[in-house]
């Protein structure tokens, strides 16, 4: 029986010719990631277990992105602990304020992930790198600790759901709408323990940033990983970024899938996920009049340059509605600089937006845009759980940068066609 793309990568990293869904394996890791919230727990475990060396100085990365620039004294202490550990063990890819970015935007930009890699990260959105044709999955801090010490971790080989992509997105429909549509269709546990494998002739119409956005939210359907077939778009993206050797894996023609869905991009409409689950996806014929207090455009889902350009396209020459705060957070220093050079930051500031240095900040209710009781936000982030962006009685509506920017202008959930 044939193997899926994920199964082939896992088999190769476990030194096996073949693996089957459900099999438990130990696999070698190409990259181990942690951030300022999860790394301290891993470091505590590392020290408690008595480890005194790391498996590689090149293959461990720590990114200080969640509560940075340090939001309070405790957050500062957590970053300090990471900084000292990285210094003590000579971890090369340690990124701190000034050169950091949101981890899942930063690592692909730095060329740290290549097709065929096996990556773990102590952050659930580590599934983002599947966009590059890597196996990449979120784990906990104990896994991160084991990965740092030994360069390996245990996995249960997943089965897969295949998404056959065709067509091309209409103007003002975005990759975010595609993934919200899919999560709405299969549910927040629709891909539990499984891979979501994306392929088909429509892939050529999805940019690498589109794919990063879609793979990023595979976890919101419960998936172990999301993974895209490698093509010209992938190779073009990595050619001036990735310097290490890599291997491209393809799913076998006779690979078995638990389900196959056809996704016609031309049918995708602007979509909003209502509180309090990403599966509550609605298109505008089902939305009605929803007043909002805040808009957040950024995050590991939608903080890349194409997202910032999309928001600027809507906000150019317009102004944010009265009594609405619009916070724009370019995901990396490079995105920030590019947006500055292209004049996008000026568009935002003239429109009455706040522009922030890269941070996960408000996405997880950390800082830089917390909601009060009863407030509503439209956000380009990935989760709208109870209390996610602040008070347990606040609400988060997930949407694309186009929808978020249009909503900032009108002060209610809106799509670009309402104002363009």
């Amino acid at each position, binding site marked *: 029986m044939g193997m899926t793309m994920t199964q082939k990568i896992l088999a190769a990293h476990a030194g096996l010719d073949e693996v089957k869904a459900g099999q*438990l394996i130990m696999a070698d890791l190409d990259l181990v990631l942690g951030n300022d*919230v*999860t790394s*301290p*727990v891993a470091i*505590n*475990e590392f020290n408690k*277990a008595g480890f005194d060396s790391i498996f590689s100085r090149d293959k461990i990365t720590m990114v200080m992105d*969640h*509560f940075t620039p340090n*939001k*309070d004294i*405790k*957050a500062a202490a*957590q970053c300090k602990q990471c900084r000292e550990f990285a210094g003590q063990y000579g971890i090369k890819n340690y990124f701190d304020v000034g050169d950091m970015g949101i981890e899942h935007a930063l690592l692909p930009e730095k060329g740290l992930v290549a097709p065929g890699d096996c990556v773990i*990260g*102590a*952050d*659930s959105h*580590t599934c983002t790198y599947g966009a590059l044709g890597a196996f990449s999955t*979120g*784990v*906990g*801090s*104990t*896994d991160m*600790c*084991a990965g740092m*010490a*030994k360069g390996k971790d*245990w996995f249960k080989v997943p089965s897969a759901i295949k998404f056959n992509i065709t067509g091309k997105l209409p103007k003002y429909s975005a990759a975010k709408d595609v993934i919200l549509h899919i999560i709405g269709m299969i549910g*927040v*546990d629709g891909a*539990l*323990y499984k891979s979501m494998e994306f392929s088909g002739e429509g892939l050529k119409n999805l940019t690498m940033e589109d794919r990063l956005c879609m793979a990023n939210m595979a*976890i919101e359907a*419960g998936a*172990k990983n999301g993974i895209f077939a490698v093509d010209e778009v992938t190779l073009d993206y990595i050619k001036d970024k990735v310097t290490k050797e890599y291997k491209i894996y393809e799913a076998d023609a006779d690979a078995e899938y638990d389900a196959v869905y056809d996704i016609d991009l031309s049918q995708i409409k602007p979509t909003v996920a209502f509180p309090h*689950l990403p599966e509550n996806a609605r298109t505008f014929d089902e939305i009605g009049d929803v007043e909002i207090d805040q808009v957040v455009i950024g995050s590991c889902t939608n903080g890349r340059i194409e997202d910032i350009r999309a928001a600027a396209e809507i906000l150019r020459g317009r102004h944010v509605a009265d009594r609405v705060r619009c916070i724009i957070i370019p995901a990396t220093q490079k995105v920030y600089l590019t947006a500055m050079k292209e004049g996008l930051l000026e568009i935002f500031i003239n429109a009455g937006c706040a522009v922030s240095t890269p941070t996960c900040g408000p996405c*997880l*209710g*950390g800082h830089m845009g917390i909601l009060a009781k009863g407030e509503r936000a439209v956000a380009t982030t990935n*989760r709208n*759980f*109870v*209390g*996610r962006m602040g008070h*347990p009685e606040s609400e988060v509506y997930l949407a694309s940068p186009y929808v978020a920017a249009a909503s900032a202008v009108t002060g209610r959930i809106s799509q670009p066609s309402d104002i363009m």
Partner: protein
Amino acid sequence: MKAHGIVHKYGDNVDTDVIIPARYLNTADMQELAKHCMEDIDTEFAGRVKKGDIMVAKANFGCGSSREHAPASIKASGISCVIAKSFARIFYRNSINIGLPIIECDEAADRIDAGDEVEIDFDTGVITNITKSESYQGQSFPEFLINIINSNGLLNSLK
């Protein structure tokens, strides 16, 4: 090995943001985090929970973030086992890696109510509801994972 305690009951899709809200994640002190465990959906949990108590929920328990602070704060609050219809995958592996017993069992998740007195035999996977005089067969772990659990977590199993 057995667990025995009073049940705290929850529904579907209990996410890690309500198990331990991110606003408290500026510390890795699990005893401190236990004071805020579940507070966004059950403000009385931290004051009510007793050592050995059992948490029961429905499908996709622990969805969302990878924060190990979630199972760790549940464990630090005194909970001896979590029973659910299914667990989100990162929560599942985190629980095994840190030694928080978890069991998947549809029938137990449907039949057990808040306040029931329940006993769990981890060797057989049998869940006994003392209050209702019923028992349910939970799913047992494969040998690979039992070895991790018996080594008292992943790190010890790798040494």
